[in-house]
């Protein structure tokens, strides 16, 4: 069975990416995220999951964001996990969102998708004109499938 060989080049512990909070920017975020995950040898399936999850997190955080809003993504990677913090501002505050607010529907679906694709996530209600989200995915151990 093939083993993961350690890379000669050290990986950065943190990467910061700031993009306009618009859907056409999500591919940029996805590419960055998957490139970093690849650096620590995330498996193909895990990267496919991350691709979905990163998009969901960004979309959810950017809901109701103004045209001038920015999305600040901080990626933290280690040998065992990938972590992403997402902060979008300014956003229109509806705090706390009522059950029938469109955001609830959007985030409810995002949660379903995130629950299925990452190990840990959080989407906070907007406060002070900013919405924060976070996800964490652990790298599956490089062991043979049963």
């Amino acid at each position: 069975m093939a083993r993961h060989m350690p890379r000669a080049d050290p990986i950065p512990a943190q990467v910061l990416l700031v993009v306009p909070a618009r859907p056409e920017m999500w591919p940029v975020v996805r590419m960055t995220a998957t490139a970093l995950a690849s650096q620590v040898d995330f498996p193909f399936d895990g990267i496919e999951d991350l691709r979905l999850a990163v998009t969901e997190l960004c979309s959810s955080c950017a809901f109701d964001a103004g045209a001038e809003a920015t999305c600040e993504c901080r990626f933290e990677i280690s040998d065992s996990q990938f972590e992403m913090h997402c902060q979008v501002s300014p956003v229109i505050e509806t705090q706390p969102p009522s059950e029938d607010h469109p955001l609830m529907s959007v985030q409810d679906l995002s949660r379903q998708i995130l629950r299925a694709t990452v190990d840990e996530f959080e989407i906070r209600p907007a406060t002070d004109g900013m919405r924060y989200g976070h996800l964490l995915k652990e790298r599956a151990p490089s062991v043979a499938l049963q």
Partner: protein
Amino acid sequence: MPTRHAPVAERLQLYANTRDRELRSELIEEHLELVERLARRFADRGEPYDDLVQVGSIGLIKSVDGFDPDLGHEFTAYATTTILGELKRHFRDRGWSIRASRRVQELYLEIGPTVEALTHRYGRSPTIREIAAEIGATEDAVLEAMEAGYGYRSPSLDAPGPEGGTLGDRLGEQDPNLELIDSRVTVMPELAALPERERRLITMRFVEELSQVEIAERLGISQMHVSRLLARSLATLHRLVEAPSDRVRSNGARPAQKRTRSGQKQNRPEAQTPDNQSHSPRRD
């Protein structure tokens, strides 16, 4: 027997025990909204929405058939995982129709079989580095191809026809065999999961018993095109019909755990959302 008014969990338990087909259809129908919402998440990637709903419906059927209530998991979490898996597989398996360079297209087409081969070889999902080495490309190129692969699509009834409109439009508005279709649906409820236009194409061939050539003449397309469309619709039907035998049990879901904000680990399917998400309405 519980009716629609009974809790979903109760009816899922009953279905697990009885495998009652009427109850199965009822449960599938009630959760189609989840499929539609998940399908919309993929709607900007070049695939017709109806096709995505169709693919997602297969995942839903597998979910209903494979769900094991005794494990105590939440059905919607299990179904979401299964439906997403089906949609991802669909995108992974289908053909191209986007503005990607030929090099990227060719590379992407190599990734699927390579992943399959390496998974078989290593007994686990391969890394991007391993895929790149196997193909003889750079990791960046593989990642680029994977990203570009988000936009591809397969031949569809929604594709423009040779004389304008779509092939789906040519299938007409009225179908004298709708009642017959309905009776077939009773026999094969999976047929109901197909978009109406694909159902009608199948009806033309297998109910009206028109030949492929006759259908081709009626639609003004080539017989080969009819053949491809039928093959695709039938392949979907096969997957639907075979879904029960897949036995995707809910205990087959990934056993990964997640933490609440307090740091406590819980089993994924039952994991409660953090405090700030507790206002999320439960689906069942």
